[in-house]
Structure formats: C-alpha cells, structure tokens
C-alpha cells in the first residue's frame, strides 16, 4: 500500500496512519473490524467534499473500503431542510458527499447510536470509531477498543482495514488515572449528562481514565449514553470505568492500584449547581431540541408520552436515527409527537447541521435541551442553552419559557 500498488487512496490512507501513529507512539498496526466516519458537510466544507470526490473517482477496486464502514449523522434531514431554513448549497454539498461515500462502498447509516441500533462491538474487539460518544460507550460499556478516529482517520481505517496501535488499543492505557466517588446515583438522563460533564471537566484531557465508585444501580443504555457523551464532550475522555458495573472493572483493583486517591466526591448538589449555571442565564426559549446523541426508541416513547395532549408554542425538534425512525413511525410515536407540534428529524444531529446558520435564519438565540453535550457545544455557535430535564424541556416548549 505504501508503495502505491493498491492505488492512491490506500497509499494516502496508510501514509496518514503512519504519520498519526508515529506522532502518538504506535509501534505497529492492529486490524479493526469496523470503521465509523464523522463526515457532516459543515465539518468537511467544500474543500473536504472535493477531496472525497477525488477519492471516489478512482477505479472501483482502488476506492472501495475493505471493512464494514458506516457513517455518523449527516448535516440535514432532506425531508425537513426547508422547515429548518437550511439553504440549497448545504443540501448540494450533502448530496455530493453522500454520492462520494457510496461510491467508496460506505454504508450511510447516519447515526451516532450505532451501539444501540446497528451492531454493538464485543469486548476486546478493535474498532476505528469516529464519534466521541460512540467511542466512549464502546470502550467503557462494551469493553471494545478504539481511539477517537476523526473522519479522515476512520476513512483511512476503512481503506486499509487497520489502525495504528496506540492509546486505548493498549491494555496498559486502559487503567484508571483518577477515582471519583459518586454520593448519589442520578436518575434523570439530564443528571447523568451533568455528572459526565462535571467529571469531564475534572479529567481534563484525552489520556485520563476516570473510575467511578458508588453508582447505586446498573444504568440503562440511555443513561450510559448521556453520561458518556457528556464526559467525552467536556473532557475529551474516551474511556471510563464504573466499579462493579462496566466489564473491565468488577473490582477497583482490576483497573487501579488500591491506593489510588479519590480526586473528588460528586454530590446531588453539584449536579443541581451545574444545571443551574446554564438555566439561570435563560428565561424565554426560542427553540427546544432533543438531540446529541440521537434518541433511542425508548426515549422517543417517553417524549411521546409527555407530549400527549399538549401543544408546543415554540419549535420543538426531536432528532433520531434512520434506524429508530421507522419503528417510531410504525408504533405511532412520530404521529403523537407531531400532533403536539414537534418536528421529528432523522439521520442528522442538531449541532452537526449548520447550527449557526439555522440560528441566524430562524432567529434562534436561546435553546432548551436535556443534552449536556449539546449545551457544551452550542455556546460557540452563538446560542444561550439551558440544560433541563426532558419533562422541563417539554414544559418550556409549551410555555415558551423556563419555569412556571
């Protein structure tokens, strides 16, 4: 591949992987069984799409990925683009990117919850996953092995079938580096997200591995999803352990020396204070968003139950995956949410969908969400986000403001 005998796409891919691996201390490669590509066109831009198109124009044998390669959410739901006031140039870029990915044999799954809907990784399975929420869930909850693989690197892994062996592919990197005591186990998804955000800020960088002690019940997949997505977002963290719960940490000494000091004890008051720091800055809300990560079928059912008999007075966006959406349609959940004024979107994610341009086009400035990850991202896009429970978000959508 390095010599170019397998064509220029694979030659670029292996050169890229060698360069990344050298920087990060890899001695060799490890075969991976799947790749997952983050490739919304807001990130790619026209330069990135043109770069992809050059790859896609190569002969079929040279351009096709070698392992199952799937995609993260796209930058739009074409069926709702006009309602979101997305512009034709955005949709043109999306169509071009999709055509290029498909020419390379990539499956357009358009989801960040593939561990709930496509094919969960197995323990010790090496992957090249390209969404921080997917990586942290696969590493921590499933015991799989992946680093954060950005779009170019995930594509390179798809083309070569391997990735540089550094970071969380190595057992010694998976040991805990900080111990956190949790005084009260969260119940609401938002509280799990807030807990992840607080620990993410404490951890501080990619190479830290928090171990949590004191979690009182086994979290659900959705609770782990919100916790992990926020921890990865606020801390750039890719792996955590919950003692007695996650597969590599039956006991603390499975992942740490017994003398590891307690870095912090997180209380319910800490979680409330974290949420208030966002909510106190917002009174009226322009838009309510459920997204980041995409909603599971069970979250869709919870939301439909809460919306029954109510009417949203501001735009209420509900974002799920293309795998969940048909079930939500079939089971009547979509219709119940739409009857309350919600817009149910599929295959996109709010912050990956030209959030700044949507804000300007729709006059959205203040936003309510139950996703801690989304609150972390949207400040940079010009929004003032409030972090509320799912029920409080529904109230905010119906009243147009927070609180009674």
């Amino acid at each position: 591949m390095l010599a170019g005998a397998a064509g220029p796409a694979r030659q670029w891919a292996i050169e890229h992987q060698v360069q990344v691996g050298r920087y990060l201390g890899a001695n060799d490669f490890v075969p991976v069984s799947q790749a997952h590509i983050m490739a919304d066109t807001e990130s790619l831009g026209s330069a990135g799409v043109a770069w992809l198109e050059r790859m896609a124009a190569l002969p079929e044998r040279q351009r096709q990925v070698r392992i199952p390669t799937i995609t993260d959410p796209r930058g739009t739901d074409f069926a709702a683009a006009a309602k979101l006031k997305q512009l034709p140039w955005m949709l043109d870029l999306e169509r071009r990117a999709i055509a290029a990915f498909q020419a390379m044999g990539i499956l357009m799954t358009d989801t960040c919850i593939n561990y709930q809907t496509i094919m969960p990784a197995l323990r010790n399975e090496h992957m090249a996953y390209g969404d921080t929420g997917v990586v942290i869930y696969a590493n921590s909850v499933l015991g799989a092995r992946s680093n954060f693989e950005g779009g170019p690197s995930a594509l390179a892994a798809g083309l070569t079938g391997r990735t540089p062996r550094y970071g969380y592919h190595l057992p010694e990197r998976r040991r805990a580096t900080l111990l956190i005591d949790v005084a009260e186990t969260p119940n609401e998804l938002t509280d799990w997200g807030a807990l992840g955000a607080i620990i993410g800020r404490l951890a501080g960088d990619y190479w830290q591995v928090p171990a949590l002690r004191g979690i009182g019940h086994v979290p659900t997949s959705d609770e782990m999803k919100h916790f992990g997505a926020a921890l990865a977002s606020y801390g750039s963290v890719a792996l955590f352990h919950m003692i007695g719960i996650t597969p590599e940490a039956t006991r603390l000494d499975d992942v740490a020396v017994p003398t590891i000091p307690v870095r912090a004890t997180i209380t319910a008051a800490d979680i409330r204070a974290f949420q208030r720091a966002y909510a106190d800055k917002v009174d009226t809300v322009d838009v309510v968003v459920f997204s980041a990560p995409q909603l599971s079928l069970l979250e869709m059912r919870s939301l439909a139950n809460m919306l029954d008999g109510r009417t949203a007075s501001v735009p209420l966006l509900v974002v799920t995956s293309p795998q969940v959406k048909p079930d939500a349609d079939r089971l009547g959940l979509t219709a119940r949410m739409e009857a309350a004024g919600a817009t149910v979107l599929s295959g996109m994610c709010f912050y990956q969908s030209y959030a700044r341009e949507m804000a300007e086009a729709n006059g959205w400035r203040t936003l309510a969400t139950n996703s801690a990850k989304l609150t972390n991202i949207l400040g940079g896009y010009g929004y003032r986000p409030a972090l509320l429970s799912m029920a409080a978000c529904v109230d905010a959508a119906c009243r147009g403001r927070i609180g009674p």
Partner: protein
Amino acid sequence: MKEFHARSAMGQRVRAQALVAKDGFSARYDLDRINGTFSRPEHKLAGRSYVGRILVLDAAKGGVATAWMLHEMQARGVLPAALVLNTVNPIMVQGAALADFTMMSGFDTDITQAVPDGALVEVDPGADPPCLRILTAG
C-alpha cells in the same frame, strides 16, 4: 532567546506572533471559523482573531470534527499558523496530518505559562528534538 523542547511535532517550521491562554482547543466548540475568531463566550480568547497566529494552549478538547475542520479552514485561508499544546488528543494529530499543518505538543513545562501572549515565536518541528523558540517577548 528561550527554547522549549517538545516530545512530538509535525509540519513545517513557522514563525509568527503567539496567541496564548491556559484553555483548551476545539475547532467545532470554540471557533467562529467564518470570521476567524474564538467564539465560545467562556473561552479565555473569546473575541480574538486566531488567523495567522501560533496558538499556544493547554489541551485538545471536544469532538472529532477538528479532524476535517483544519483542512477546511486551510482551504479558506482562515487557519492559525501553528498549534502548540501541552496535551494533544488523536483528533488534533489526525487533523494536522490531513491539512499538513504545523503542530507541537508535550513539554517539560506548562507551555502556556512559558510563552508570553503576543511574543514572536518560532515553531521548528524538524529540529532534534522539536523546538519552540521565543524570539522576542510580546
């Protein structure tokens, strides 16, 4: 002239004015990439232009988008001259590799405390070991 050695580096040698803060870096979370400024209100460099500057920051943050975004920013000419970090994550390395962008990380000292904001600095990835030089204080 002060020199600081780094454990890892890539890209070409560059010389520019430093923009320094004890804060993180993510292209998606922190930047208005159209106007070339830091846009996250909580960021210590909020409102300041990063174009053509050598960013000296603490740690790589956020999600995977930066891997594409450095390439996209380069195509539009709204890119920093280089990125210098205490701690990288793989996304920054992958993005720098795609964009052929100059990056350096891993020092024996906190590099955000060692380099004055506004100083003229040189980042030399090809030196052995890779080296950041402060040419004139800001």
